[in-house]
């Protein structure tokens, strides 16, 4: 039973690490803000779920599991919310998805 759990958490942790890494590469390589945000936020949630559940399986039934559950819950609440807030701020400020050739600099001017 423990070996089974170990293998399962192994798989989850590896997949989590992989998806975190993919998100990082996506955030670096994607062509414009919105695609970067997509890459970052989706893998953020995915990676967080996989990694934290993986650790939970290792921790077993203890206070640590409850805390990990709380961390996961709050991450799942806040991370997409910040992405949403950021995307709407960028859209209101006039950043357009690429294809439309708008460039925006640090002053928020085109």
């Amino acid at each position, binding site marked *: 039973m423990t070996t089974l759990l170990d293998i399962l958490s192994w798989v989850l942790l590896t997949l989590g*690490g992989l998806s975190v890494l993919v998100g990082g590469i996506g955030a670096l390589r994607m062509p414009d803000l919105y695609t970067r945000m997509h890459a970052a936020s989706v893998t953020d949630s995915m990676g*967080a779920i996989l990694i934290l559940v993986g650790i939970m399986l290792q921790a077993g039934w203890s206070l640590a599991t409850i805390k990990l559950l709380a961390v996961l819950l709050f*991450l799942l609440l806040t991370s997409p919310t910040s992405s949403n807030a950021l995307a709407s701020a960028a859209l209101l400020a006039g950043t357009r998805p690429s294809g439309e050739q708008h460039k925006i600099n640090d002053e*928020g001017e085109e």
Partner: protein
Amino acid sequence: MYYVVTIATLVTMGLALIRALLGPSVYDRVLAVNMFGTKTVLLLSVIAFLYGRPDFLDLALAYALINFIGVLAVLEFFRNRALRRSTERDEGL
């Protein structure tokens, strides 16, 4: 096993830092800070177990709760800036 996750998280932190340095727009930098925050939560949780002291998960919990405030402050800052610019433009007319 934890090492693999830690290394993946650290490399991603490096990538996010590169994004923060490259920009080009402020929103990219805010995005990078946000990413960095989530990665820190994951890193702290994993390292708490790597050290065998799971009682230190409080730290990850603190970041999971508080990181949000920074992004909202940025949002408020942008909103105020936009308002100020529009009033300045009105006064210019």
